[in-house]
């Protein structure tokens, strides 16, 4: 049987020509065959998924419409709260913790008829670019198991690339959806900040975190975002406006669309990656778009600003893991010793490194020089993007500087690992949307992703360009 898209599965199930249970079993079979080597999941929810699929089929049989994602097997990054189901963030400090509530996205997916097949692996608390920082072992790239899937949403990217799930959700703080999407050869979208509710997403850096989809097609990404997007009163930073349908947007061509090339983009992308980017410009030009040169001078400062802002917020967000109320507790005779022992045992090295960085950057006497200055750079980046978007509707960049890299090749050098996100981070700082679209292959036949960026709430335009790139490849 050939892989179907989520849109095809949902259409089939809703019309009664396809059984959700049958679709699920095909995905469970693939999990059984390859999950041992890929390790995309922290938890495969076989029994509940079978019950949910059966319920979808029963609803259809009873003449009800289960919704736009009827019977679509879906994987959730394990930093999204699922009621009564372990949610670990791939950290020992949360091992065994079962939230008493569902994240808003989980509620919306269930209401749309999706079938959750499992919780996927990630870099601990979404801090990393390779999924090697998981406390439960790394995820392997299904296209070459000697290489990383990217990260931090490596499990969700691998689950879609391996066919374990038709679609999945990840979270993107500095590139954690787009970079693994590029390395695994799937579509990955980081929406505008506030487009999707963060309620129930375990926070890494609250002002940057955003949930988004991994899919095989641009159409599926539009379908999924239409379901999970939109205002949520439980998230004060959620955008109150109603979002236009992205499924409508991707029907439009790109004739006359202004596609920007950032002439002062930081160097560092491998030649095979820049080659594919050039091919992408060519493809859009052929489809009728206009290529324009723009400058985003502060783009190159994004990485530095990010590694002050994100750890600062993280140092505060992760302070609650103190052993008092839930999760791991290492007993000691007094409270302060218990805090220290619990956090020393519960957090991995990268998480500790960022907590220390952030605590330092926010400290009295250092705030202005570090966190305060980073906030100014953040403003500068947003202003530079705004000026660029006066001349261009979308911008194209590489998603990641390289194709998927071998395990261990960057683990000894945090700075080399941080550079994986040099092209994705500025978008998060500006709060803008960005997505990675697979656009052919580079070295070793591994996939290369092209990143499409747009201004705040520019999703419809961004999806138009992405759909055109996808058409050019088919």
């Amino acid at each position, binding site marked *: 049987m050939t892989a179907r898209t989520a849109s095809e599965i949902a259409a089939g199930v809703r019309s009664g020509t396809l059984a959700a249970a049958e679709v699920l079993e095909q995905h469970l079979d693939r999990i059984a065959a390859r999950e041992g080597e890929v390790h995309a999941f922290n938890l495969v929810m076989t029994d509940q998924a079978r019950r949910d699929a059966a319920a979808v089929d029963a609803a259809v049989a009873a003449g009800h419409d289960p919704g736009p994602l009827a019977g679509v097997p879906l994987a959730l990054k394990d930093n999204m*709260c699922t009621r009564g189901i372990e949610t670990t963030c791939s950290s020992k400090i949360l091992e065994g913790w079962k*939230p*008493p509530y569902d994240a808003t996205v989980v509620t919306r997916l269930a209401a749309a008829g999706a079938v959750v097949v499992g919780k996927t692996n990630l870099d601990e608390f979404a801090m990393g670019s390779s999924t090697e920082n998981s406390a439960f072992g790394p995820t392997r790239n299904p296209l070459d198991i000697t290489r990383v899937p990217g990260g931090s949403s490596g499990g969700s990217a691998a689950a879609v690339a391996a066919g374990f799930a038709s679609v999945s959700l990840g979270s993107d703080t500095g590139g954690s959806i787009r970079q693994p999407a590029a390395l695994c050869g799937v579509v990955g979208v980081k929406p505008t900040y506030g487009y999707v509710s963060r309620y129930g997403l375990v*926070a890494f850096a609250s002002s940057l975190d955003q949930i988004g989809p991994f899919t095989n097609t641009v159409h599926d990404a539009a379908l999924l975002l239409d379901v999970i997007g939109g205002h949520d009163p439980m*998230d004060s930073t959620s955008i109150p406006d109603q979002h236009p349908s992205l499924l409508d947007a991707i029907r439009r061509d790109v004739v006359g669309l202004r596609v920007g090339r950032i002439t002062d983009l930081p160097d560092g992308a491998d030649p095979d990656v820049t080659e594919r980017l050039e091919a992408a410009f060519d493809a859009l030009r052929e489809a009728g778009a206009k290529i324009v040169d723009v400058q985003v001078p502060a783009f190159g400062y994004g990485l530095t600003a990010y590694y002050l802002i994100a750890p600062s917020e993280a140092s*505060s967000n992760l302070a609650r893991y103190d052993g008092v109320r839930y999760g791991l507790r290492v007993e000691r005779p007094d*409270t302060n010793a218990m805090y220290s022992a619990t956090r020393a045992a519960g957090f991995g090295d990268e998480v500790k490194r960022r907590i220390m960085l952030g605590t330092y950057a926010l*400290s009295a006497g250092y*705030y202005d020089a570090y966190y305060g200055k980073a906030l100014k750079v953040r403003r500068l980046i947003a202003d530079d993007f705004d000026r660029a978007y006066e001349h261009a509707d979308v911008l194209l960049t590489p998603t990641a500087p390289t194709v998927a890299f071998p395990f261990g090749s960057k683990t000894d050098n945090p700075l080399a690992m941080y550079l994986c996100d040099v092209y994705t981070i500025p978008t998060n700082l500006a709060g803008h949307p960005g997505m990675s679209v697979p656009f052919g292959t580079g070295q070793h036949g591994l996939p290369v992703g092209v990143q499409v960026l747009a201004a705040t709430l520019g999703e419809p335009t961004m999806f138009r360009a992405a759909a055109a790139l996808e058409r050019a490849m088919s």
Partner: protein
Amino acid sequence: MIYTAGPATGNEILIDGWELVVGLEVHVELATATKLFSASANRFGDDPNTNIDPVTLGLPGALPVLNRHAVELAMRIGTALNCTIQRSTFHRKNYFYPDMPKAYQISQYDQPLNVDGFLALPDATLIGIERAHLEEDTGKSTHVGGNGGRIHGSTYSLIDFNRAGVPLVEIVSRPDLRTSEQARQYVTELRGILIAIGASDAKMEEGSMRCDANVSVHRPGEPFGTRCEIKNVNSIRSLGRAIEYEARRQIDMIEAGETVRQETRHWDETDSRTHTLRVKEDADDYRYFLEPDLVPLAPSAEWIKAIADAMPMLPGARRARLGVATGFPADGEAIMVVVERGQDDYVLAVGAAGGDVGRALVHVKEAFAEASATPKLPAGDLAALTTLEVAGLLTATQAKTVLAEIVAAGGGDATAIARARGFEAMDTSALEAMVDQVIADNGPAWAKYRNGEDKALGALVGAAMKASNGKADGKFVTALLQSKRT
């Protein structure tokens, strides 16, 4: 009224040549149905850990959503304290403590909701209000074992998160208070305002109003001295005592050639002293930064106006109104007490029903001490009583007796009751004759009184009242006896 920053004048009372300088930080729990950032109930006294939810417990992924009613109550406080209500933001104040679920408190930092106001004491002294900002309360820890309920050295601790996330407004005064009495008046007045505007029940004993005092001393004309912050003051009375103790401690230190250290001190009710809690050098670095889970709070001009338009009359204005109506001093005891009990409208209603407001004020103050609000008695019944009194048909003493009977019955006709009891005021000449008779009958007591033994007066007044069968006015009898002594 315009508040000008600077020390209050005219009320300085120097202690051995030292001037006391006090600023107060008052935390009040807002009377909302739910918490500041979640839908859990804001209710005192429930079973531990029953009013909780993912936000209250700081569970991973939970996000705060600001309670609009809490904002309204905070704006009412700002309006009542003559503050400017401005665009404000929330910050995180980071520190570890077991009853702090997120390991940070969401509070307002450099952009508070209310700034630059003032509160007028009953004698019209203006005390500056620096700010009144919104923040969330912590949970409540009970440390078991060890010494004195402190976490250090305890065997274990119990935490109740019912209070965590309860909305608080912290009201910070300027260092404008100069005596412990002013500090007491400030808190009393603030409490009256908070209750009047429905912002809080402001019960210090339940912790819904908590007060910290910043205390320093200096020589008039010299810069302020080093201040100490006094915590754990649990009543208005303790506040005065703690300030007095702390002022004395600082003066004694300076006069002994020592230096006052800036520190936080704990008021201990059992030994009536303050004790070092922590010195400034040990203070936490709270690493404040803008709370990314919330957006700025910027009340519109329309909203601010609607709050101001809906303001009830505040205690100060109500006292002034009653002062004008009765001729009594607005900051005198009778008016202070009656307004604090919220019985001033009733007194005015007695006046509107044709009664005498001055007499009504005195009766309400004395006869309805138990009542915390409006007396149940129809205003017309009390009006009729005061009319008889003012017309000289009842003495004050008789009026009291009649009123007690009316109150017990929940209403009644004063004229009928007075008649039934045979009350009729004696005329002055009859009374004077009766007093002369009492003097004649009580020679030894009269002699003692004339020789300067004031306590003999009581026996003479008692004899006169007995002779009149209670119809005489005790005060008038006393005055007559006094006038005959000279």
